[in-house]
């Protein structure tokens, strides 16, 4: 057993209101620079929809992630020799048109225009070339555009659905959508790390944050195509790839990452998971539908004395183990089993988990009173958003996984309704509880965690023991004069 700690997260999609506050917080902190305007380390997509960059989930188009070749895992874009052979031109690299061309407006024209009979206008200009341009896309261009024949209908997950399911999805007055906030998943089997010819991308051993060493990066751009989530970005002005850093400078100071801290819906949970690094490859080799379960299997119980012993032997500090025990992510993923990884079939073992949205409001109007249907299992099958679609997103197509989550989420609602309204029969409550596989306390705990907790319970940042790290690696006096990035230079090419 090789136990490592990983700062992981859970996003509760039922709570996301799609306000993009997270995106803006991130943009203001990290990517408000020339060459980074188009980058949204955190973005919020409307699902069904094509996302950002457009159709990023379609790996036949982008060739990101891993594939199984015999008993081996190989990057979908090619093996190592093939990667080196492509350094002069990466055929799988998305271009700016797959994201959008950043734009601004000539605002000065509004005040400088000579007097005339028509209104002065501020024409849009490209932030790359400065030339006038036609704006055709943006970072959230299809925001809330469910049912669109351009966006929603071309969602790679929707295309997989049957004709009937698609029609059901786009039926008038039954239109359905949810928001999907995305950041880097800080994967344990990261494809970006594996694809970097320069070896510039690495996972921090202590907390599992995946970073790109900016001085080592030579801009080969293999990570951009290899990441199936398209969460590494090429900075066209600096010639360097950049990605979400999980706000490690903030975390090292004990603060929540920007997007977590600013989340209006409080959908974001952060905490440490302990996992067995020896099992990474075996886990990533599982069949598509088994990946989500296998990944849960890889995550270890921080209360298990044997795990604690092995973790200590592996050099994990006691404070980290304590943080793992207090981790809300562990509860969501393992204890309650209501959070699933996004697209586990990409085989990168993402460490960001999602509570799938319980979109189908399982009640029907009945002569003025609302009644939760007796048998929610059947209702699930009639859900407005087909289970197949959600299973395609969160469990490699395994509908049982998503169904199990929904049984638990529904049981929470039924239990709360029984308590607060009291119009449900005991039999119904017991049935829901039995189907969920969770007891009364667990269901209550889910309710508490999803609705009543304060930030310290939702976001449990482990002590990153930065002071020890600094003392081990460099002179603290030197460090004091730096910005905390280990570099005193601005990210700018001077030659």
């Amino acid at each position, binding site marked *: 057993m090789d136990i490592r700690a990983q700062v992981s997260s859970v996003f509760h999609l039922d709570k996301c209101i799609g306000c993009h506050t997270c995106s803006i917080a991130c943009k203001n902190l990290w990517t408000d620079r020339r060459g980074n305007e188009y980058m949204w380390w955190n973005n919020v997509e409307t699902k069904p929809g094509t996302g950002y960059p457009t159709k990023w989930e379609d790996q036949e188009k982008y060739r990101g992630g891993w594939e199984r070749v015999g008993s081996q895992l190989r990057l979908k874009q090619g093996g*190592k*020799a093939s*990667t*080196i052979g492509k*350094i*002069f*031109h*990466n*055929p799988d*690299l*998305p*271009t*700016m048109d797959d994201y959008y*061309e950043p734009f601004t407006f000539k605002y000065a024209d509004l005040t400088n225009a000579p007097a005339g009979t028509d209104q002065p206008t501020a024409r849009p200009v*490209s932030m*790359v*070339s*400065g*030339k006038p341009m036609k704006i055709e896309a943006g970072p959230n261009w299809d925001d809330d555009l469910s049912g669109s024949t351009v966006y929603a209908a071309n969602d790679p997950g929707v295309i997989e659905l049957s004709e009937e399911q698609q029609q059901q999805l786009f039926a008038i007055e039954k239109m359905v959508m949810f928001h999907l906030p995305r950041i880097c998943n800080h994967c344990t*089997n*990261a494809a970006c*790390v*594996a694809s*970097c*010819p*320069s*070896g510039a*991308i*690495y*996972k*921090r*051993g*202590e907390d599992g944050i995946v970073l790109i060493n900016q*001085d*080592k*990066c*030579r*801009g*080969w*751009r293999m990570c*951009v195509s290899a990441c199936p989530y398209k969460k590494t970005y*090429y900075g*066209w002005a*600096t*010639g*360097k790839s950049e990605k979400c850093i999980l706000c490690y400078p903030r975390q090292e100071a004990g603060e929540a990452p920007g997007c977590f801290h600013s989340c209006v819906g409080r959908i974001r949970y952060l905490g440490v998971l302990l996992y067995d690094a020896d099992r*990474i490859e075996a886990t990533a080799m599982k069949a598509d539908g088994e990946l989500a379960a296998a990944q849960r299997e890889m995550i270890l119980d921080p209360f298990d004395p044997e795990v604690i012993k092995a973790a200590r*032997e*592996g*050099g994990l500090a006691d404070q980290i183990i304590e943080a793992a025990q207090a981790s809300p992510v562990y509860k969501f993923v393992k204890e309650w089993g209501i959070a699933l990884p996004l697209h586990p079939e990409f085989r990168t073992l993402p460490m960001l988990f999602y509570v799938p949205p319980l979109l189908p409001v399982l009640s029907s109007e009945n002569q003025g009173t609302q009644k939760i249907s007796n048998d929610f299992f059947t209702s699930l099958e009639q859900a407005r958003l087909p289970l197949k679609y959600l299973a395609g997103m969160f469990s490699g197509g395994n509908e049982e996984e998503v169904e199990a989550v929904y049984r638990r989420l529904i049981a929470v609602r039924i239990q709360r309704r029984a308590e607060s309204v009291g119009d449900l029969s005991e039999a119904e409550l017991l049935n829901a509880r039995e189907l969920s596989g969770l007891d009364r306390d667990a269901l209550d705990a889910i309710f508490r965690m999803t609705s009543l907790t304060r930030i310290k319970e939702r976001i449990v940042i482990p002590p990153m023991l930065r002071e*020890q*790290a600094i003392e*081990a*690696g460099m002179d603290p006096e030197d460090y004091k004069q730096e910005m905390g990035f280990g570099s005193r*230079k601005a*990210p*700018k*090419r*001077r*030659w």
Partner: protein
Amino acid sequence: MADMILFGVFPYVALALAIGVGIYRYAIDRYSYSSQSSQFLESKALFWGSLPWHYAILLILIAHFLAFLIPTGWGTLLGSPTRLVFLEITGIALGITTMLALVILIFRRVINPRVNAVTSRIDWLLLAALLLQVVTGVYIAISLRWGGVWYVHTVSPWLWSLVKLNPQIDYLANLPGIVQLHAVNAFFLVAIFPFSRLVHVVSIPISYLGRPYQVVVWYRQRRSN
């Protein structure tokens, strides 16, 4: 005198700049030690430019270096007429490939407004110098036949005399002007190597082949084993 400066002194200046400034830049600004790729801004024309350019210029450079480093072996290789003709034709074909590819790359930077916006003055200088180099190279290959053979008896001894710190500039002074231009421009490219995007030629990510896929970095030595 001019010959002495161009063929006897300038090569040393160029090499000194390349090594000295190259190391200096690597030490103080490793961040910029790469070619700033523009594939993200424009990919299709780059495919037709970059790919043939790099593979063809690599082969041509290898031939130049082999003929310089092991002139006797190279001479033996070209001893048979069939091999000589084969290499001559291959060389000219590769030369024309580089020329066409470079023209594509230059036009791409002129025409595409996005790529144009990320092209610096030193990029233009470099492109001009490279174009001059491949055009003179192809012209020499076509007008002064069997370069593979006469190179061994003229340019190779000149380069060796430079290596031995005893420049014999007569070898080059007696060659046609176009060859002299090609040689001096070659050292000009060496001279601007550390100031331009050319620095990327020393980043050969060969260690990638030997490393494990996943890279994990620890702050401190994790355990004693």
